[in-house]
């Protein structure tokens, strides 16, 4: 056991040893919402979330980030031009998956 720093209260020394499960932020938010109810005037952590975007998301090439006018029908990768398409066609599936996950476009199967 590491030595307890001198400035710590002696009565607290044992409590640090115990393992305790800490609530995640999500759990805290849920219990907070339940506690206050729907009609509360209180501003909670969950009530100041930004609104969803009203603009359609723009499409960018997954590899280069350039404006993507095309989408590979097989892999669903966005690409900029024919040169990129050549690479897309030969792209191993784990890289494809990585790009799609990064863009949040993987379908849950």
């Amino acid at each position, binding site marked *: 056991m*590491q030595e307890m*720093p*001198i*400035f*710590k*209260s*002696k009565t*607290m020394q044992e409590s*640090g040893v115990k393992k*305790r499960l*800490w*609530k*995640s*932020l*999500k759990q*805290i*938010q849920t219990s*907070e919402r339940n*506690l*206050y*109810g729907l009609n*509360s*005037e*209180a*501003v*909670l*952590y969950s*009530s*100041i*979330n*930004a*609104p*969803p*975007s*009203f*603009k359609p*998301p*723009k499409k*960018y090439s997954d*590899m*280069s*980030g*350039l*404006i993507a006018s095309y989408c590979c029908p097989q*892999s669903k990768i966005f690409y*900029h*031009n024919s040169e990129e398409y050549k690479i897309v*066609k*030969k792209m*191993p*599936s784990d*890289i494809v*998956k*990585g*790009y799609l996950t*990064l*863009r*949040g*476009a993987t379908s849950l*199967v």
Partner: protein
Amino acid sequence: MEVLVLKDLKTVPDIVHEYNPKELKGQYLIIDNGSFQCRAGFANKKQPQLIFKNLVCKPRKDRNKKETKEEIQQQAPPATLIGNDIVNIEALRFQLRTQFDKNVVTHYFLQEQIFDYIFTHLGINTEGKVNHPIIMTEALVNPNYCRSLMSELLFECYQVPTVFYGIDSLFSFNFNDDIKGTALIVSLGYYTTHVIPFIDGQQVTDKIRRINVGGFHMLTYIHRLMQLKYPMHVNNITLSRIEELFHEHCFIANDYIDSLKKWACHDYYDTHIKKIQLPYTQASAPTQLTAEQKIEKKKEMSRRLAEINARKREERLIEEEDQLARLEEILESYDDEEDSEEFEMGLKEFNLNSYEELEKTIAATRTRIDKIKAKMQAAETGVIEEKPVVIPQPPDGVNVEVWLNQLREKKNTILEKKQVRKQRRIDLAKRRTAAAQERMRIISRLAGKEKGTDDFGSRDEDWNIYKKISREQDSDSEVENEKLLELDEILRHYDPMMNAEEDEKMKMTPAEYHQLHFAVESIRGAELLFQPSMMGICEAGLSETIDYVLKLFSAENQQRLVDNIFITGGIAKLPGLKERLMKELMEIRPFQSTFSVKLANDPSLDCWNGMKKFATTTENIANKCSISQQEYLEFGGEYLKENCLSNRYFKSPIERQDNSMM
């Protein structure tokens, strides 16, 4: 174009400051507890004495090592490393933990270790007590539950006299501007971005909005992009290196689409590309052989091969001759009537049945011997029968070049087909790919056909479906492989430099091989702030959120807010942010209206400076608004005294007990 060398800076462990009780008596201890960095120090110091990343490295026990109990007792447990003590952060990347969940502290045991670190390094040595009033930051709209745990920790574990909780961006605003004024505060943090309307010295709490995108997302986004772009360097592209790149070479594009159009140009790409040199060890490359040496080596090899063959032939010759002798012996014994038994034995020895077979075998052996002898002679004289190589000529009336190009095209189509098949094979082997799913779909459809109505097989094409779902059909066809060889042969004959050219292209110096091209990535990461959709986050971007928040106010207040837009937080240091925001505001605001955007003097340090200003220049307010230990005991851990710099306090309702049923 420039080649950048990574610095790979290491942190320097913090010193333990000297604690002077006389000088520091009653001084405020200021802790800016940010989710990226923690900055702590006494209010009478010019700048925070400690600045470290809010990280704890909890060493894990080596599970492979089985130690006896005695050994465990003898060895001190590996020390927990905190903040700047973690010198080699990449080696410990997977053991790092933080007390934060997004921008809120949720893990208070880790927070306790961080506090221990802070107080120890500030040299505090008073027994059983940290006898300094504390000013620290908490998340905007921090849940009461979290505040109560933090208060519990501070008051009970460290026995602090008072605590003041404030909001980082408001402190920063306090340092840069008049806290009694009006402003639209944009705070750009590590996990979150806040848009805070602040009117007449008061935040308008219900109109604050938080975008859950921050520096962390930008970093991980670029990190992953670079890893996917260079899969061979996955382990070399570390988060710390990306952090370095991000801090030094990333910026915010003024017009993102326009910049992308520029990047699509090859000339622009070539002049603006940043090449990042990864460290590498110079492999001792095999000394390049000259063409002559190569030929010499080949000759040597073939000579040796010939020798081996000759020796083998000699051995075989002797063997065959022995056998012949033995067979002839048996043949002789046949003529001799007395030795009939011996003859039978001899036949058995060679697995033969009759005299005729014996004769046949002898004849066969003789021809084999003759052949071997002929070969040996040929090898000695060096005359090797060579098949005349027939190189196909181009068909009449066709230019050789054109013909060759056609052949090359043919070769490429075959190669492409092979590639596609290979990809399909790989895809089919995995479960979650489109190809594998399509295959499963067909199989289930085949199996699911209703009885009676099934007319499968009435047409010949029906059977093709089995080809489609078979994994076998994808093997490269023999015919194609042969054709490919043939094409290669012809092409090589006409164009011996074919492969050399390709080799030249592939040849890179090891330094070039270890270079990363940092192109659109320099603006791509920071763009997440304005387009979170790039990462699949459906929240509105910064300018959209500002627009949204503004529309919650009357026209008059809107104007007052945009006349003083204040940006703070570490991400605000990205070049181009202010210009970009001006451009976005121009689009949002009415024609010819005014607005002003101001950046914090030092976006990452001004929060601490603001806290210091609050503690030193308005000490009486700080005193009045701090929560004392007495109040903590009386009102509970979540209690908060409201102040223009703090959160609003919404007292938790007492949990309703359902009495009506009783």
